[in-house]
Each structure stands twice: as structure tokens, then as C-alpha cells.
């Protein structure tokens, strides 16, 4: 993997000059490379993994919805995916192999809100055959980052 990308993926808040030191380029070169990656769509965006549970005022419920669909005659799965991903409530859409077609991650304030979204927005889409909703009860790891984990640094030998 490109070194800049591998550094950036795990440490998006490093400055260009810090990344430059790590990969052995100049700050300007790093800035240019990142701009190129953004322009060409290799870097699609930047995301922050937040443990919403820790913020009491925030209510957030997430569900994974399995969708079975009938591919459309001309556009197959593409136009169905486009319809689904247009909703703000939808966090991710993936075409799957196996027992169903789309895995859709939906976020809302309450269980009720998500249930209504599925019933009123997803299920009625032309070509959708069935939906199965799985609510996420607890997140342990997301995008490679541990959530709510108490991994303490146990290293403590005295003479090293």
C-alpha cells in the first residue's frame, strides 16, 4: 500500500509535515500527493469514529438491513443501490454475495424511527422483495478501531 495512505488511514489528524517525516518526503510533496488522491477519488473522504454511547445527550440507534431485490432489466443492481444510498438515514450500502443482495446500514434516533424508515422508504422501493432488520446492540470495533475497550498498557518492567 502507498505509505502516505497507510499512515493517513490510521492517523488522519497528523499534519502534512509529520507525515512527511514519517515517509521520508517533503511537506509539499505530501500535500500534493494527498490532493491528487482526493482529486482522483482514491481518498473518498474523512471519517471520525465516535462512541455515541459516551455522550448522554445523543440518542443514536443503528441497524443493519438485509435486502432481497430483483435486479432491474437494464441497470441490474446499480439503480437500486443509487435509490437506497440517496437517503440521509443510510450510512452504508453494500452489494453482497450469499443469501441476500444488499446490506444497508441505517442510523436513526430510535428503534421506532428506523422501523418506520424501513417500512416507508426501503420496503416500497420498486424491485425490493423483502427486508430483514437487525438492530445493533453494542459496537465493539469499527473501521479497525476498538470501541468501549479498556485495553490498559500493562507494560511495566522496571529495568528496561
Amino acid at each position: 500500500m502507498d505509505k502516505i495512505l497507510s499512515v493517513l488511514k490510521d492517523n488522519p489528524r497528523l499534519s502534512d509535515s509529520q507525515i512527511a517525516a514519517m515517509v521520508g518526503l517533503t511537506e509539499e510533496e505530501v500535500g500534493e500527493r494527498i490532493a491528487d488522491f482526493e482529486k482522483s477519488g482514491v481518498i473518498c473522504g474523512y471519517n471520525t469514529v465516535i462512541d455515541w454511547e459516551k455522550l448522554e445527550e445523543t440518542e443514536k440507534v443503528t441497524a443493519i438491513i438485509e435486502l432481497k431485490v430483483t435486479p432491474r432489466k437494464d441497470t441490474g443492481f446499480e439503480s437500486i443501490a443509487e435509490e437506497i444510498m440517496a437517503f440521509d438515514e443510510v450510512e452504508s450500502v453494500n452489494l453482497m454475495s450469499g443469501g441476500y443482495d444488499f446490506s444497508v446500514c441505517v442510523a436513526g434516533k430510535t428503534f421506532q424511527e428506523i422501523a418506520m424508515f424501513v417500512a416507508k422508504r426501503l420496503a416500497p422501493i420498486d424491485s425490493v422483495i423483502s427486508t430483514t432488520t437487525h438492530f445493533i446492540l453494542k459496537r465493539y470495533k469499527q473501521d479497525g478501531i476498538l470501541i468501549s475497550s479498556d485495553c490498559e498498557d500493562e507494560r511495566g518492567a522496571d529495568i528496561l
Partner: protein
Amino acid sequence: MIDYDSLMNVTARDVPPSGIRKFFDIAAEMDEVISLSVGEPDFQTPWHVRNVGIESLQRGHTSYSPNRGFTALCREICSYYKRKFDLDYDFRTDVVVTVGGSEAIDLAIRTLVNPGDEVLVPQPSFVCYVPIAELTGAKVIPIVTTRENEFRITADELRKKITDRTKLLILPYPNNPTGAVMRRGHLEEIAQVLRGTNIMVLADEIYSELTYNGIPHVSFASIDGMKERTIVVNGFSKSYAMTGWRLGYALGPAPIIAVMTKVHQYAIMCAPTTSQYAAIEALRSGDGDIAGMRDEYDMRRRLIVSGFRKLGFDCFEPEGAFYIFPCIKNTGMSSDEFCERLLEKKHVAVVPGNAFGECGEGYIRVSYAYSTGHIKEALRRIRLFLKEENLM
């Protein structure tokens, strides 16, 4: 009331405790401490290696191993030294598997040194050589290494310290705490001084897999004529992130290894069996893991060296291990003062350089066996510290 002090072995009683200790104690009492003080990898042992250890337990391999270590492991160690350093060691006679590199150091010194013998210890260096040598009744002769010589020992310095009582030279490279590396040319110069003497060498190569800038480690035993006078110490702790498994080894001339094995047999019996099984797997299929960890350390090394230099410190670029050893003399503080104040004010723990020998005064050891985020936060706090102390 028993006066315990009067009952104890005088040398053991009077050996000073490690200088790193008090900082650990203070740091342990504080909240939100960012530590850059630990001398072991932050990686976990690669899964396939752990798994072989687990499987060995499931299969009930819970007995002692042969004293010198499993033959399969001795074979793998010798084949590793052949593969990496083109050295031929006989797995039947030239290797003993120990409880960490530390035990191998202890065995080598106890096996070679008589009371009154002189042991040459380059400094700054790992804190165990001096006390162990002193426990055998040796006279320790420090060889000061300097920033100007990139913390390498030089032929001149070595020559000055040799007397007719000199028994052993410790060669701790890649070096903890400085990160210095001795390249082939530097080792040749040392070898030239030793040829024709009876001085033995303990080459502590525990960081041999962690060298950077494309400079592979050169084993001192591979220098012409040096194998016969060198005991190589290495292990699994740093290269495979296996510190807690406590497994290392020594390679050397058969008659010396035989006596080391005898001492090991009486004192320790054998190294942990589970760890030995895991180590066989590490040597057979762990090269990729080492490369991955080395790349990660290298990026952190560059980040932290550049970070310290931007803060205005003179920071030697280390070519091995996972420490930097920046000079803090420009702050006007002693090593102890700097570390104590930084810990107190900004809750960042680093180790004073004088813990590694008097000549380390004016320096600090900073470990980069920590995540990039952790290092970044530490650098941020050190910057604030310097600003508040009006040092930048």
C-alpha cells in the same frame, strides 16, 4: 529483631536499584500519564506464533524440555544465524536456550568472569551488565561513548582500557538506549584491537532485527577470527514482540556453551516449554511479521526524531532499536530535573540518560514503542512544557 542488612550478601545488597524505577513509581500514581519510557514492543506476539503456544498446551506439552532447549528449536536458531549472518553454529553443542536474553547475559558473565577480572562495558547501555558483572566480583570498566562518535565505541577508547586483567568486552549493539549501530567497518576496527588477546566478547544482539535506513545488522561473530571469542546473545522479545514469553539464547564456542548450560541447568532447569514451541514457529514463519513491525517502528522513529529536532533538541538519528536519545543540555536542567519536571507538569514519562551510565547525564531516553497517536500527543505536551518553562 533480625538485622537483615547484616545477613545479606554484601554485593547483592549494595547493588544500586535501577534508575528507571522511581519514574515508574511516580508515574503509576498519576492520572493521564503519557509514557514514553517502556523498553518493550507495543505489538502483540503475531497470532500464528501465539497459536502454536496455545496448541502445545492443548496437546498437553507441559513438561520440562531438555536443559539446553528442544533440539528442534536449537536447529532453527542455528539455521536462522546461518540465513541472516552466514554463521555456522552446531545445534548440538553451540547453543543454549535461556529465559530471555537476560539470562543468557547472566550465564555468559558468570561463566567467564573470576573475581578481580575486568569487564569492559560501553556506556550508555542497558542497565544489567554492570550489576551482574559486579555480582561475580568483577571490576567494571566503563567505556564512555559520545554523541560525537555516534555512541559507538572506538578502537582508541578500547585500547586505552585494556589491561592484563581484562576478561570480557560487552558489545551491546544495536544499542539501548542510544539506538547506535556498529557497522561492519566499526566492528573490524574493534576486532583488530582484540586479535592476539585473550579477551572474550559478549555481543548482545537482542535488537538485531530492528535496524533502519537499510543497514542490516552485522553480527560481531561474523568478523574474521571473532567467532572463537564471541558469545552471541539474542532472543525473541524484541524481534517477535515476545517479551512476556521470556525466551532467548546464547551461541558460542562449544566449551563455553557447555559450562553455561551447566549453570543454566542448576539455576533454571530449562526455558519455558510453551515458549519454546512458539519460538520454533516464530523462526520458521515470522520473517514477514518482523518486516511489518520494523516498518512501523521506522515511521515512528522518523516522526519522533523530526519532532524532537523541531522542538530544538540535538537529537542523534538512531539506526537501531526503538529509542531516541536526545540531548537536553540546552534546557539548563539535569536529566533527573528534566524528567521529574516534565512528569510533574505535563505527565509525560521519559527516562533520564544517567540511568544508563554516568555519561548519559544531559540526555534522556525516549521510547517509540508506542502508537503514532501516543507519540504525537507526547510531542504536543513536551512543546507546551518547553513554552511554559520559557525554553522556546
